[in-house]
């Protein structure tokens, strides 16, 4: 890819995100002093504190769970490892607010478990609708992001490095902290950033806990105070902070440039025995049980009760979900690969700033981003009609808008794992390829793609499942008749019929299993074990 082409493509791709963000941020030009003084006095103080706590809590939670489990399944061996290495990804397929509703149904002040403990045993559980409760639920829902990217990083290193460290006199623990963890840092950060951006954009979960955050304030301004512009202003401020954080992180990462060696053979795993093996199995099954089995069992019970809802239309919902997720994930994956590769070829602060900007869509509440996309599209339609090119709107209400909006929203989900994966491919590899006369697209195809395979698969799986669960953009931009499984969930929950939402939620999990199984199968025969081994 020639230098100019690289810049050109990254700028074009970044515009998909930057235009809607620009539309949202343009609201800053029209501040409403009365509303702002109200927000400043009564809304912002609480939400700032709440948001900081949430980000800290979820950040620590997903890091501990994600890295710990990735380490166990990537580099250790214990009973059940093969199963857990992919099963631990499954909570990804559950929309976080659905799990939240299940948890609240069990442990809230009126929860089944809470009341049973109270009435049968006189025990009183602590209030679950609390900061701790939200953090717990979001941690269990979002740890798979870190798990997936950290695992790809650990697998990329292989256990040989650890052996080397140990042979140099480090204990196993020291080797983990001083060698494996720092080298996996880009991968871990890639997943952590995704989990935190998702936390910042989350509305469904926090609203069930009535826990006020930046997002709840955005929606309050929009829906209750009838001010889309105040909502956009809040969203723009949120995105600005995320952007600064991303740039700082990028700089920090850059200073600690790692040149990872990739083991060419299957990793030699640390075989856990006795007590350690038992603890590992218990930890993995415990987390899997809480994050996946428990909510799914409850959803299955509710689905059974609502089984009359199941009709032939579910085939349409499922195929729409499947088609949109596949198409979307494929497009976003290609775009993200172009951006990541161009960044590798044209390193430097300007390029890094641009690529960070291209991923910002993930930190915006989806509905705000959807408006940011829809406005320029309708303007374009209007322009084309006014110039007499077309006589009816051509773009609005088509799949094109939907796919553009998905790209703006989920670029980070594909880009972060790919960037982390590329970072692990040593530059000396490029040089060797160069000497051998393998350059350009050829080098990408023959050298990088095979090495990137685990990261690409991780990116594809994450993006697929994220689109599958996505709601606000799907709702706003879907063409007539294009209802998906997630839309079904919305129809049921919007008037509080949560139990009936279980059926489409379970269907999302089932369809979401497809990519996980496909990956497991593909990877099973491959040398590079990312998901399956």
């Amino acid at each position, binding site marked *: 890819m020639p230098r100019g082409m690289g810049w050109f493509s990254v700028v074009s791709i970044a515009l998909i995100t930057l235009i809607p963000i620009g539309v949202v941020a343009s609201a800053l030009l029209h501040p409403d002093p009365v509303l702002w003084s109200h927000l400043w006095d009564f809304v912002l103080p609480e939400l700032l504190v709440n948001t900081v706590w949430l980000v800290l809590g979820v950040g620590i939670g997903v890091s501990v769970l994600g890295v710990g489990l990735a380490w166990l399944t990537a580099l250790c061996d214990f009973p059940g490892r093969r199963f857990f290495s992919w099963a631990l990804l499954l909570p990804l397929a559950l929309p976080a607010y659905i799990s939240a509703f299940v948890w609240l149904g069990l442990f809230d002040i*009126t929860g089944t478990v809470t009341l049973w403990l109270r009435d049968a045993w006189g025990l009183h559980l602590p209030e679950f609708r609390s900061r701790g409760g939200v953090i717990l639920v979001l941690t269990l829902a979002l740890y798979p992001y870190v798990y997936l990217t950290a695992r790809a990083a650990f697998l990329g290193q292989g256990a040989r490095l650890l052996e080397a460290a140990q042979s140099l006199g480090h204990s196993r623990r020291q080797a983990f902290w001083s060698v494996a963890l720092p080298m996996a840092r880009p991968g871990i950060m890639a997943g952590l950033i995704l989990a935190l951006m998702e936390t910042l954009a989350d509305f469904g979960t926090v609203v069930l806990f009535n826990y006020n955050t930046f997002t709840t304030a955005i929606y309050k301004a*929009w*829906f*209750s105070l009838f001010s889309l512009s105040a909502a956009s202003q809040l969203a723009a401020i949120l995105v600005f902070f995320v952007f600064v954080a991303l740039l700082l992180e990028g700089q920090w990462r850059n200073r600690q440039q790692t040149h990872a060696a990739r083991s060419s053979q299957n990793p030699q795993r640390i075989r856990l025995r006795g007590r350690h093996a038992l603890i590992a199995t218990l930890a993995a099954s415990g987390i899997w049980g809480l994050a996946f089995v428990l909510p799914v069992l409850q959803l299955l019970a509710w689905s059974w009760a609502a089984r009359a809802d199941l009709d032939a239309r579910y085939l349409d919902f499922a195929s729409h979900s499947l*088609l949109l997720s596949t198409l979307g994930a494929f497009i976003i994956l290609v775009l993200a690969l172009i951006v990541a590769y161009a960044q590798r070829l044209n390193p430097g602060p300007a390029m890094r700033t641009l690529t960070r900007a291209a991923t910002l869509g993930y930190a915006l509440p989806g509905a705000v981003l959807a408006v940011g996309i829809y406005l320029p599209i309708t303007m374009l339609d*209007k322009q084309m009609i006014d110039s007499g090119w077309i006589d009816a709107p051509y773009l609005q209400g088509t799949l094109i808008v939907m796919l553009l909006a998905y790209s703006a929203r989920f670029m980070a989900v594909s880009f972060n794992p790919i960037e982390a994966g590329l970072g692990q491919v040593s530059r000396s590899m490029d040089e060797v390829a160069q000497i051998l006369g393998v350059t350009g697209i050829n080098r990408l195809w023959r050298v990088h793609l095979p090495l990137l395979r685990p990261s690409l698969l991780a990116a594809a799986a994450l993006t697929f499942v994220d689109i599958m669960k996505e709601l606000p953009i799907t709702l706003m931009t879907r063409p*007539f008749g294009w209802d998906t499984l997630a839309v079904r969930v919305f*129809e049921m929950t*919007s008037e509080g019929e949560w139990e009936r939402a279980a059926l489409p939620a379970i269907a999302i999990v089932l369809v979401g299993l497809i990519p996980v199984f496909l990956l497991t199968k593909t990877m099973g025969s491959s040398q590079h074990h990312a998901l399956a081994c």
Partner: protein
Amino acid sequence: MKRTAVLARTLSIALTTLTASCLTPLALAAEVVVYSARNEQLIKPMFDAYSKETGVQVKFITDKEGPLLARLKAEGANTPADILMTVDAGNLWYAANEDLLQAVNSAALKNNIPAHLRDPGNAWFGLSVRARTVVYNPNKVKAAELSTYEDLASPKWKGRLCLRTSKKVYNQSLVAMLITEHGEDKAEAIVKGWVANLASAPFSDDSKAMEAVAAGICDITLVNTYYFGRLIEKKPTLPLALFWPNQKLKDPTAGVHVNISGAGLTRHAKHPAEAIRLMEWLSSEKAQNLYADVNLEYPVNPRIKADPIVSAWGPFKHNTTNLAEAGRLQVKATMLTDRVGYK
């Protein structure tokens, strides 16, 4: 190769679906396009029945009110939407205020819908009534102890009240009604009293608040009646009962706070005549039961009896303040709840 086969199959499915969805508009039947915040399972049966009766196709998209309004506004003159449907009056008022709706002069609509449940400027019309009333635990509270919404601020209910979050528009409309009746200061004192009486942090939905009453965490709450109907249908043994507040006040407009689900004709409707006919049909004797009963709501047309489950709760007097007030005062009401810390 296997993979190519899979790819080919996926592509062919994709193409069929894409072309299928492109071909539909070619069918030349008359149609009406609806943007609806009332959810699919509640409106689709209506539209299916209408299509069967008249041959007019009804196309619709569901979403929350905010995004639907933003979409309508962005599309401007190019919108395909003929009708906007919401589940509260506030958003219809706002849509009218933003000039997204147009007045409809229809004798049938005026005749079928009481004046306080439609826009004085005829931009929107209620199609079903949602009463927000008191639900209490009869093991702990006697009906004689209950009287008004205002009374729930009295210290005798300290630690005995549960409420849904103020983020929900139903509560914002209720507070807006208090503002109309009492002015902002007195309304603020009342809501402050409610907050002081809370037994637990506000709940995310009406059902949760009722479950808390049933579980003895609090004694009394405020809900839309159809949530009560739904919960009691599922768990008939729960100790919960309905009470109609504000029935004995001197003020002629006083009564139970009601809201509507309703509809308006969009400013740039492409099929206005068909759209008005659909709205008239929805308010007619023929359709009102279907419309309201499917969600255990009250028909807006006073000549129609509610579902037997709903009728069993007895008659009550509406608060007859025009619901446009709920929209006009929504921002004030929201700010008020923020000020008194009603989350």
